[in-house]
């Protein structure tokens, strides 16, 4: 029974039936199909639309205008229906299928309100969605590739700095690049340095000058003081967001499932000889 209740298509059809039933019951005074009734509900609805746009009450002339517009639309609409103009009209088709899909979206909330356990399971299973971006704190100094004695200069400078010397003045803010970077995300670092600089940081040892590491500017010596990688946000802290993501992901799933199930209901026969074989096959074998 539980399985049955979780089946989206069943709900989908049930909902469709309810919508149909509602309209059927509400149209009892409209048996001939060619009477246009404007009751309070209809009038209030039209009035609401108008007020929504203009943020005030309409005067009499304006009321007359929107009623005229409504009637005009209704009579043409009804006449069009009577002549079956709605059949095989691409725009009508698109609109109706959109409406039906919207129904399947609403379904999701009805049949899938997650409980705490389900949410947590979803969080555990999709941790990558809730990961903090990797971030680093580090110092760097830059050597450009056209400098003379590049290798020796770098080695010598690295040794000096590892022996406790500060950053030499000539290497401070070189090319305007700050020496000190604090708690910056990989994306931020990538934007500023280019090359493979940001993705290399994770492989570097902590708390000593090392290198060279290449960027879009040249070669760097780097002192990494802190790595924050592979951290996830605490479930309790971001529960509302887990919930939102859960809803979104299950909505996509439900939609797809309803589509698949409906496809079962309507057998597809492809007689076209123009359609490429491979595509044809994919529908036959589904």
């Amino acid at each position: 029974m539980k399985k049955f209740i979780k089946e989206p298509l069943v709900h989908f059809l049930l909902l469709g039936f309810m919508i149909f039933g509602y309209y059927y019951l509400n149209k009892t005074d409209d048996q001939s199909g060619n009477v246009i009734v404007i009751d309070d509900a209809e009038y209030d609805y039209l009035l609401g639309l108008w007020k929504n746009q203009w943020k005030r009450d309409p005067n009499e002339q304006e009321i007359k205008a929107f009623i005229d517009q409504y009637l005009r639309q209704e009579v043409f609409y009804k006449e069009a229906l009577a002549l079956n103009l709605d059949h095989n009209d691409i725009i009508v088709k698109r609109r109706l299928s959109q409406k039906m899909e919207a129904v399947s979206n609403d379904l999701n909330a009805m049949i899938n309100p997650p409980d705490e356990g389900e949410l947590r399971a979803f969080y555990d299973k999709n941790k990558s969605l809730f990961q903090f971006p990797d971030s680093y704190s580090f110092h760097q100094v830059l050597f450009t590739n056209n400098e003379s004695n590049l290798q020796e200069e770098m080695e010598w400078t690295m040794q000096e700095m590892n022996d406790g010397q500060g950053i030499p003045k000539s290497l401070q803010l070189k090319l305007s690049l700050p020496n000190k970077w604090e708690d910056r995300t990989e994306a931020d670092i990538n934007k500023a340095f280019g090359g493979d600089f940001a993705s290399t940081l994770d492989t570097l040892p902590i708390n000593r000058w090392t290198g060279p590491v290449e960027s879009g500017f040249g070669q760097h010596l780097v002192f990494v003081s802190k790595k924050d990688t592979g951290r996830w946000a605490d479930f309790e802290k971001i529960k509302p967001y887990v919930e939102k993501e859960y809803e979104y992901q299950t909505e996509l799933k439900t939609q797809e499932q309803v589509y698949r199930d409906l496809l079962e209901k309507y057998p597809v026969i492809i007689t076209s000889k123009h359609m490429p074989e491979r595509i044809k096959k994919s529908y036959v074998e589904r």
Partner: protein
Amino acid sequence: MKNIGMIALFLMVIACNQKQKGESSENNSNQETEKVAYNHNGSVYDIVENPLKEAYFGEQHLHTAASMDAFIAGTRLTPDDAYRFAQGEEVIVNGKPHRINRPLDWAAVTDHAEFLGEAYTLMNEGTPGYDSEAAKAMRNAPDLKTALTVYKKYVLDALAGGDAHPDFWQGYEAVKSQWQVNIEATEKHYTPGKFTTIHAYEWSSAPNTANLHRNVFFRDTNLPDMPFSANEGPSPQELWDWMKTQEANGVKVFCNPHNPNESKGMLFPEVAMNNKPIDETYAKTRQHFERNLEMMQTKGNSEVVPDFWPNDEFADFENAVSLQEYYGRIFEKHNFIRYGLNRGIKYYEDLGINPFKYGFVGGTDSHNGAMSNVEEFNYVGHHGMADQTALDRSRNEQDGEMYNRDMNPGGLTGVWATSNTREAIWDGMHNRESFATSGPRIKVRFFAGNGYKNTYDSYEEMIKDGYSKGVPMGQNYEGTEAPEFLVWAIKDPIAPNLDRIQIIKGWVENGEMKDEVYNVTASENRLKADGTVTPIDAPVNMETGEFNKEKGAPELMAVWKDPDFDPNQNAYYYVRVIQLPTARYSLWDEIRNPDVHYPEDTKRVIQERAWASPIWIEPKN
């Protein structure tokens, strides 16, 4: 997908909160940044302030579905989507997921004011007019051909018949409603210190198809309840009148014109639109409200063209020459920025005030909602269904305007500012301490003063000297001695090295307007004594699109003196930085799509560049 960005943002907020406060600034003596508290809308943000200023890159010209022409062409991305794209989120551009290569520091949505009301109706089901025949046709156009027919039938024909609007326009309340939607999106995405948004729109006047468009920018949330469109006033003077009224209400506002190349001589005119000569009041008002010119965007680079500057060896760059085949927008010298700057200083000589005293910005003018999607290898067109595939770009025309293959991904704006906040970015543009690039994130600084050193031990020392002994780009040099121009540039970290830096001087001599290009420094000591530069051979690999990684310099710096400086001469000086060659999007399209072939005359390789805003000499007599 749509929620992921929200989560990332939320996580970042948590991460910030978890950070320990009051960390000491050990080893920080050389980086005088400081954390300060910043208030916006009742929230307090920790932001970094840098007295030496940082270059923040952003978009100042972009259309979303709220621009009706973009909507009809198939764009459905809203201002909200555009700001998400700018920050690195994936969005669906013309049915395909797309992402900016590098997120922006700041951005402004500039939808056309003229049809904001229609856009509101088109996008909001249930509103009056939503189901009108015209609105339905606009929403449902399945292909470019239909879209163009719809555009002609309901917009162009209405305009031709004297109607400013298609028949489903619901009046000014609808305009206000959409303006409000844009305001809300702009507020929602402002994260001081991280990502700045600026309230803005485009005033799109085009009398007799001469493009006089201006983007209008507001400094804060003191905003008009409705933007002033070309329907209310098609002449720039009417726009300024409106801006004056806004100023009287405490609104802080300026505007930037764009596409002088499409202006048919009307952007830098001899007479105003009322046929009266440009006078002192006109010049004063224009300089007060108009601060920057858009140097380059998808519809061309407006600096110079070889036709009128045959001696400028870098003039042949994204000139959008096929513009001339439509609407009689024939290239004339007075449609280009270098002429405009020259004409401006000549007006100064006659009127005592320069009406065309402009700094530089760059933008895309994308109608896809894709902010600053400027990288050649990441280009997916800017005009909905018209140029969405490589094939479309290689052979279609942009209806009634130019060939798609003559378009380019557009330019970028860099602003020197002390922090990434709305006020600092707006002020930076307003002070013209801004620069344009053709897309790359090249940074360029430019000062004029006295007592600069030829080399500096540190960047910090150089910049401090730059400010303390002179003025930055966008200002007047006021010294009595011949100025020294300090210029500095660094490459974009993902692009090739730099080729050279040039300074362009324009001046008035016996009433005649003149200009000249000076090479002031080049990589690998290629600058010769006679001022010419030995060409560099740094070819692009035509099979893979890769650029040369060995040649050129990552950084260039020079202090230059004008050999012909005359303190009594009206003059301006601006900077052009040239990068080594890279693949144009046309080459990337051909490499990735073996069936796509651009016509022979299409460029496959370009030299991207940056332009720093001018410094002026305005003699006092």
